[in-house]
């Protein structure tokens, strides 16, 4: 990770070597930033396999467009943008598949919301619970929620990275929060009833 100037210089050096076709240098770059990219992808998709696929696809995309990399911006910013956009594409395609073919999605989507919620009450697995709620949101609301509330991006960054207007980000975030809050509230009341 870029913790200092020396790391930035190392990254720049690896990028310039990769541009000239040095695959070993690019391999080092991948190893250097894989953890960072995986964390973003996982916190958006909540599935390690999907996150790994997105990370690989992101690095392939970076390799293809390395020549277009603007050295004035941080490499992590560029990587973040690519990973998030690929995650968003994946969320949208999952949503389409669900709508058209009624296909099951990832490991969590295979579980019905009710099952998942029951399990989360028992396990007190809040991540699982929030994920099952998030999976039921429309793609725009889901990605905005993931970026703002799970990854702590501010609204301006979210708007820029997703290419949405600020007002659209806020509206989607409001709807997502309100929906999830209502679901949490229901779960809480059920939990209280169960305890009684």
């Amino acid at each position, binding site marked *: 990770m870029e913790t200092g100037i020396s790391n930035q210089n190392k990254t720049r050096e690896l990028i310039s070597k990769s541009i000239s076709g040095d*695959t070993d240098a*690019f*391999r080092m770059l*991948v*190893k250097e930033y*894989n*953890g960072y990219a*995986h*964390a973003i992808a*996982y*916190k958006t998709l909540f599935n*390690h396999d999907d*996150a*790994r696929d997105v*990370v*690989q696809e992101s*690095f*392939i995309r970076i*390799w*293809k467009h390395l020549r277009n990399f603007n050295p004035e911006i941080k490499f992590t910013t560029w990587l973040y943008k690519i990973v998030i956009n690929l995650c968003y594409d994946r969320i949208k395609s999952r949503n389409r598949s669900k709508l058209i073919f009624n296909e099951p999605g990832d490991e969590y989507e295979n579980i019905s919301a009710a099952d998942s919620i029951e399990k989360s009450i028992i396990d007190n697995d*809040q*991540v699982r619970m*929030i994920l099952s709620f998030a999976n039921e949101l429309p793609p725009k609301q889901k990605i905005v929620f993931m970026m*703002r*509330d*799970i990854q702590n991006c501010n*609204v301006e960054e979210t708007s820029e990275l997703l290419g949405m207007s600020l007002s659209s980000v*806020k509206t989607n*975030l*409001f709807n997502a*929060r*309100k929906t*999830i*809050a*209502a679901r*949490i*509230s229901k779960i*809480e009341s059920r939990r209280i009833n169960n305890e009684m």
Partner: protein
Amino acid sequence: MKCNSAIKYIYLQKELKLSEKQQKQLEDHIAACDKCSMEFSKAGNYFSTITNLKFDESPIEDELVANHVTSRIHALRKSFLEQMIETAEQFLIKPAVRFAIAASILFICLSYAAEEYRALNKINLLENKFSAISNKIIEAGPDLPINTRDIKNFISGDKQYLKLPGSWVIMKETSLIKKIEELSNQPGAELLINNQNDLRLLLNHPEVKKIIEKDDELKKIFNRIILEGAVTHEN
């Protein structure tokens, strides 16, 4: 403050950056409105849940991912031909290049069109001339020993000479030259020349020139013909 605005402020408190006055209005509204108070409590629960979420540590698979990525990059490496095609495509994408290609194609097309137009004009001109001649001949009357079919045959090469009204005969240039060469080997043979074109060919023929050069009498006669402008001499 209305409930709709209050709920919006509750959920987007940080994002909307409320002023102190708005904050006070919101607090007052929540205190006075049961519905919004309930929503405020839901939102509080939401934010505390989200803040306390603990995520699994991502399994670090640097080596695995790096292997996958590297093998895909190797597969992506293009052949020389593919690289050439890509370079050509990138070159062709440039607006200036595309404009130059389009202009060249347009220029070539226009040149062909102009050539075609000139050729068509020539054909029209020839057709008009031919039709004028044939009309004249047809108009000359049915007793003439010539018709349009003879003219066509003469032009197409089937006939070696064309008889015209009176004693005029037009011979094909090749057949006339052949005739001159035949006669040049036969002393005392005669060749009837009865049109200006054939006379010009005769005078320009090397064999005839030799004969004329040797014979002073002939020389005088032909010089007179040339001086009188009956024919043009190609010397």
